[in-house]
């Protein structure tokens, strides 16, 4: 009886500790939420706790200022994530499931690119896009995600595809399934969690990127969200902090939907990937 009570007490203390940690972790998010509905005077007097009345009008100013960046980010995010998923899953399938001379060598040539750090490639990559005349276009935002992301994507997906039982593929081939259909109709549906993980990581990367867009894009109408917030919105509304935070909240909305929709896939894929070194 005594030990049982001790366990209950200990579990409760652990819950208490964990709840404090979670509150500290999420506090900055809540700050953003309630600053976004203050007026300027209320913000000056009490920035760190919620106050009434709520000024929802901040959001209409903020939305007008960031809607263009939101559209750009959703467009760039959708195209590059779809491209990345297709290219890396197809290539990973070939490396994992098909037999051909030079397979290991070609795979190593792809994986070796993971050892090349961004600092070595940043400037020359900029110059490649410069000489191809792609600066200031959507392409300079889309291609790096598809091509650059495919290296890590292939690494992640090949390991997963290798783990699928060969018997399924043999059965499909015996039934007259073409190689492409074995990839598209057998392999892909079995790999949804890991594909979801890769998609979420890619979209978050695009949402967070500041430096590459602000370097390669000078036409502000093409900025993705983080670069647009940093290069334009922060300056335009520097005297009206609540509107700034309304803009930050708007910028987070699509990721909130992504989180609600995909977090189970994401957790499942992430935990099954068994990341270690």
């Amino acid at each position: 009886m005594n030990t049982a009570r001790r366990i209950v007490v200990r579990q409760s203390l652990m819950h208490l500790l964990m709840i404090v940690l979670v509150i500290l972790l999420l506090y900055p998010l809540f700050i953003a939420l309630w600053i976004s509905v203050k007026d300027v005077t209320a913000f000056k007097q009490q920035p760190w706790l919620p106050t009434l009345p709520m000024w929802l009008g901040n959001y209409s100013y903020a939305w007008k200022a960031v809607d263009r960046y939101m559209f750009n980010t959703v467009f760039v995010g959708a195209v590059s994530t779809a491209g990345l998923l297709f290219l890396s899953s197809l290539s990973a399938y070939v490396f994992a499931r098909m037999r051909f001379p030079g397979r290991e060598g070609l795979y190593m040539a792809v994986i070796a690119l993971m050892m090349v750090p961004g600092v070595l490639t940043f400037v020359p990559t900029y110059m490649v896009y410069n000489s191809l005349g792609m600066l200031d276009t959507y392409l300079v935002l889309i291609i790096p995600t598809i091509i650059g992301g495919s290296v890590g994507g292939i690494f992640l997906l090949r390991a997963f595809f290798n783990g699928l039982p060969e018997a399924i593929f043999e059965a499909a081939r015996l039934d007259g399934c073409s190689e492409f259909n074995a990839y598209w109709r057998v392999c892909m549906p079995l790999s949804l969690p890991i594909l979801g993980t890769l998609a979420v990581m890619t979209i978050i990367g695009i949402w967070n990127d500041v430096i590459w867009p602000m370097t390669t894009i000078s036409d502000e109408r093409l900025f993705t969200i983080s670069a647009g917030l940093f290069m334009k919105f922060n300056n335009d509304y520097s005297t009206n902090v609540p509107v700034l935070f309304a803009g930050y909240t708007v910028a987070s909305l699509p990721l909130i939907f992504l989180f609600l929709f995909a977090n189970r896939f994401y957790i499942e894929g992430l935990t099954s990937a068994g990341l270690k070194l």
Partner: protein
Amino acid sequence: MSAMERTLLRRVWDARLAYLLLSPLFIGLIVFAYYPPISGMYHAFFDWNALGKKTYIGLDNFRELFADPVFLHSIPTMFLIVLPKLLIGTFVPLLVAELIFSFKSAKWKFRYRMLLLLPMVAPGMVFMMIWARIYDPINGLVTLAGKSLGLIGQDQIINWLGDSSTVIPSLIFMGFPWIGGTAVLIYMAGIMNIPSEVIESSVLDGASVWRRIASIDLPLLMGQIRYFFVFGLIAGIQDYNLQVVLTGGGPGYDTYVPGYYMYLKAFGASRMGYASAVGLVMFVAIFGLTLLTLKYMKSNDDSRD
């Protein structure tokens, strides 16, 4: 043509579909992944501007780089920022993963994991802007908390991000309690992979939780610890988002790191060749440090591989 060559050609021809399916990947990689690093290493020996005009200058870029006090000073600064963040980022999530693992209720384990992922929904830029407000010298949260705890005098103004003595600790403290994101999840997956008989028998032998963590969990999680440490180190050395968004390298040159130095030389001064030389030096340093780290952090899995 020998018989062997003919059979190889035959096998290549039979597998033509595989090569066809890989061709989009390799066309893309050649232009956008293999060419740039080679171009960077080559142009490190040139005076090369943003218009593409170049002149061979031998080792001049490197001589200038290693004589520039701004660059030389940026190296220790980088380690002062990266190493504490790396230790925090590797071990705090491990402790929290053990904490969550110790909950008896599977439902709460799942809920806590979900809550830790939630900060993902705010772009990193937004987080940095929020923390900039938290560090506001006059009515920032850190200042208010310090005053109410009596750590700071009522009339004292500390410019957390603008003062040499506070800027680096402030950058490290950012993101407290450092447990958001995927690290805790990956550690938890590792802990759950430890065979339950091993953990149960440690309990039967009377080992405390701390003893179990030290003698069983830690050795079995070395693979994950190495993963976070090595990739955290590689990413940390190259990161200059904070400099671009928050500090501008300041105050003075106090938060300059090599990556930021490279960025300014390329896109502020249009010296692409010089910036490529910085990139090449950083590449060599990262490569060496990675090998060194891997050598001194031997994985327990090595014997079984």
